[in-house]
């Protein structure tokens, strides 16, 4: 896979030496809803690194639990489906209770690259930022991987995010981000659904957390395209955000 080599090269170019980092406090939180097909693979990739992996099963009705029974993950299960935002928050609170120093949010469907977790953590470790967000639009190579229609939609998302959160970013709705322990303690997601991606930006601004974007590569597989958010769902997300603004 040529892209793999490329990623590894970039890793070494930006001089991150994973071996110099302590890994004990790195918790990777993976919200997962009916992702049994792929979550095992995602976890297997993450297990090559010494992170603590937390899978939050958001009330899946498939074999998610069985797929993970041979792994070393911490398995949390919502007894009913609450939504991606709620699952992310549950995993984050669990990680905090377990003494996590860095919390990484990671998608279950294998679209993120485990090796890039170090990229997200580095600015926090060096004290440069408290929250690091992955962006698909910071490097040309990554940008080209995003299908054209999705790129347009995401540009709209950037504007919506800016209206609701006041943060102007290059990308939005990437489930790949890292938080310092202190930042995670200040952020509490109340949007149970996908609108949490915008809500988290709002909370970052309200808590005056230092925030930074780093380039990440997103791998769009046939599976993630099929399973991922439908473009029409963006209407729901905006509606959720408006209702929340009005009736709180």
């Amino acid at each position, binding site marked *: 896979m040529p892209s793999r080599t490329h990623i590894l090269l970039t890793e070494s170019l930006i001089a991150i030496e994973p071996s110099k980092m*302590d890994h004990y406090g790195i918790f990777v939180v993976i919200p997962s809803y009916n992702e049994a097909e792929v979550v095992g693979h995602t976890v297997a990739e993450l297990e090559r690194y010494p*992170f603590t992996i937390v899978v939050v099963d958001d009330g899946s009705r498939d074999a998610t639990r069985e797929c993970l029974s041979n792994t070393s993950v911490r398995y949390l299960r919502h007894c009913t489906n609450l939504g991606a935002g709620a699952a992310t928050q549950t995993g984050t609170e669990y990680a905090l209770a377990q003494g996590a120093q860095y919390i990484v949010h990671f998608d279950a469907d294998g679209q993120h690259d485990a090796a890039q977790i170090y990229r997200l953590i580095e600015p926090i470790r060096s004290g440069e930022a408290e929250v690091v967000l992955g962006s698909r639009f910071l490097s040309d190579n990554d940008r080209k991987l995003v299908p054209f229609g999705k790129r347009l939609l995401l540009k709209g998302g950037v504007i919506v995010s800016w209206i609701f959160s006041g943060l102007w970013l290059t990308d939005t709705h990437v489930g790949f981000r890292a938080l310092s322990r202190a930042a995670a303690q200040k952020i509490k997601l109340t949007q149970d659904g996908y609108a949490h991606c915008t809500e988290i930006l709002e909370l970052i601004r309200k808590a005056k957390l230092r925030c930074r974007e780093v380039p990440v590569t997103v791998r769009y597989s046939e599976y993630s395209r099929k399973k991922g958010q439908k473009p029409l769902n963006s209407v729901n997300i905006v509606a959720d955000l408006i209702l929340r603004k009005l009736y709180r």
Partner: protein
Amino acid sequence: MTSIQLLLITLTLLGVMFGSFVFRSRLLYRSLAVLFAIAACWFILFPDLTTKIANVLGVRRGADLLLYLSVLAGIHGFLLLYWRTRRLEEKLTEIIRAITIRNAQEFKADQPRSKEGDLNSRVPAHELSEVNQPGPNPQR
């Protein structure tokens, strides 16, 4: 008194009685409900009064004014319910979250981590502060 007036007054009084059960602990809502009942009975007994008020506000018929007001009240009630449901959902999320965190499972907890990592995934929280000091690097 016509029969419709009798019916409306009975229903209003019953409604207020049930309403004051719903708002058991809120004096403000209860007194508002009583005031509302008195006003409602008054308008039922003297329907021309509503027309006078409507004329003052620029509406021709009293019944129209009541219709507009009831639509507004309906919307308000809907939003109130929406807001309540939201809060209920948030509480439900909290409860499920607490149960979930309490029931966290660790598969293969006794086995050491593979390959690169020497992370013992069962480091107790109180020891983490020591563990996190820069120490011997994990082998890669």
